[in-house]
């Protein structure tokens, strides 16, 4: 861990209010926390929509109604759709509960996908290296339907880390896996965090998964109730 901690995520008084016709539904009521570079943090939310809202905002899939979100030194709270896409491409690696791989597409192409949109060079080598780092060296030409759930999730992790993002954002990454594969996935995250200093954010409702992280931020009813410090 680096001696001087730099915050990679600074969230200050973020509010998100959805409008359902005339009714305003608050999902986040002023959330503030920081995540340092190289941390492995779990964000736990027992239920409710606050979790996915927070996950969408951290992942630059959505913008807050008010408040400030600084990601890796860049204020990303008010960006256009295409600017958000650029941030997602460069700074965020997503791992989803449903894996979200492209159908009928070999693992290697899945992992190359973010680099295709970035126009990055050496895509093939970098994709191969990423797949190797998650232990899928032998499966690079397999399609999702030829892979187990755990293997599919590992392809997704390879896709997330291939662009060297500032954060890896995992949304219930073990939710669709049996406990053995789930444990393997968590171990991959731990290894990446420890050996490469990757910042990993696990969004979950499961306390046993959250317990694997170094720190847990608890959110309830749209507010941070415990930031784990």
């Amino acid at each position, binding site marked *: 861990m680096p001696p001087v901690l730099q915050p990679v995520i600074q969230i200050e008084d973020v509010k998100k209010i959805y409008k359902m016709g005339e009714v305003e539904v608050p999902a986040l009521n002023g959330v503030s926390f920081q995540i340092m570079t190289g941390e492995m943090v779990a964000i736990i939310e027992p239920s409710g929509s606050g979790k996915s809202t927070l996950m*969408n905002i951290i*992942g630059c*899939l*959505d913008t807050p109604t008010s408040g400030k979100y600084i990601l890796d030194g860049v204020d990303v709270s008010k960006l256009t*759709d*295409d600017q958000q*896409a*650029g941030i*997602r*491409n*460069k700074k965020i690696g*997503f791992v*989803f509960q449903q894996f*979200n*791989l*492209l*159908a*009928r*597409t070999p693992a290697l192409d899945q992992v190359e*996908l*973010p680099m*295709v*949109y*970035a*126009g990055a060079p050496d895509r093939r080598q970098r994709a191969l290296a990423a797949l190797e780092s998650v232990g899928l060296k032998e499966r690079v030409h397999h399609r999702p339907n030829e892979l187990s759930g755990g293997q599919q999730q590992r392809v997704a992790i390879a*896709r997330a880390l291939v662009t060297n993002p500032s954060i890896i954002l995992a949304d219930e990454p073990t939710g669709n896996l049996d406990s053995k594969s789930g444990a393997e996935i968590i171990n991959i995250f731990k290894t990446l965090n420890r050996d490469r200093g990757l910042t990993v954010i696990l969004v979950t409702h499961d306390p046993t998964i959250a317990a694997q992280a170094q720190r847990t931020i608890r959110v309830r009813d749209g507010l941070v109730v415990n930031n784990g410090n």
Partner: protein
Amino acid sequence: MNFMESVRIAMRSLSANKLRSSLTMLGIIIGVTAVIAMLSIGRGAQAAITNQINSIGTNLLYIRPGAPVQNGVRAAEGSAATLTMEDGTAISSVSNVVAVAPEVDSFGQMAYMGNNTNGRIVGVTPDYLNALNGSVADGDFVSSSNVTARSAVAVLGAGVAQTLFDTGEPVGQSIRINGQQFRVIGVMTAQGGTGFLNQDNQVFVPITTAMSRLSRGGRFGAGNSVQVLNVKITGPSAQTQVIQDISQILDQRHHVVQDDFTIQSQQDILNTASQVTGTLTIFLGGVAAISLIVGGIGIMNIMLVSVTERTREIGIRKAVGARKRDILAQFLTEATILSLSGGIIGIILGALIARLISGIQLGSSSISTVVDPDAVILAVLFSAGVGLFFGSYPASRAAGLHPIDALRYE
């Protein structure tokens, strides 16, 4: 994302749904095939008519009398009886004039035994053969002595000979033209042609015979007036000068200041004919283009289905950093590849069909087809345009999807 990348992605998703892709393409294939086949028929007709006119010779001028004006009433063009055989003789001395063939004509019935046919009866001099590039297949053409003697002899067009005598030998036989007895002295070589241009459905008689014996009830001119003077000249370069010289001579002979005749060149007729067939071609192509547009709507329909089906994929692509224009480019490329490859297959099929139907007999004439390179270029551009146009709405819908909604889509 560069262009090749879009093509690669598009090819992959198109080949993932082969049946659907080919059915969608089928709409465009049929459209382009129809356009190419129709245009080739139109162009073929154009070429055939042009050839027909050219076979008579492009070095030809037609001089017709003007319209007589009596008490301020203007009659039909060419109906005045001002052009004479003597005018023809006078014109033949103009330099660069190869031959002058005066002509009178009418329509009438020709009969032999139980057979009869209707056709054009042309009164000619021996020069006609040379002036209009005709040739005799059997027997002789009208001779000068026939003209002088007003002989009751006839030379049959190939079509008339076929109808009246079938496989029999016409030369030496007697036929009736408008009820009068004529001896057949020759048969012309078949020249082909369609409709009003049919050169085979006519009989030639000496011009003097036509004037004296067939004029009653017909429209042969009175006295020695002729309806047309066919003038063959040495070449198109001499045309302007020859027309000027002829006008001068005729004005002098007729004692008029303003021309009482019209001179028309073969080129004028050619222009008119290609204008008519050009319109026909555009019409045929336009009808076929409608099916191309229907094919385009098919593309739009399938692309919309495809966008809905692949909402999740769009969400994933956006999550890993695809911008709006990347998604737009992907779906536009897909639509364009569909329509363009459909277009290329259509061009090949259309050319094949054009080849197949070329030569099919329709009545007395046969269909001829010409596949023009500009029709091919037009079809390629048009089909690509159809893909872009009908693909743009589905593509912009895909590009406008919000990543969260798209990812959550089941």
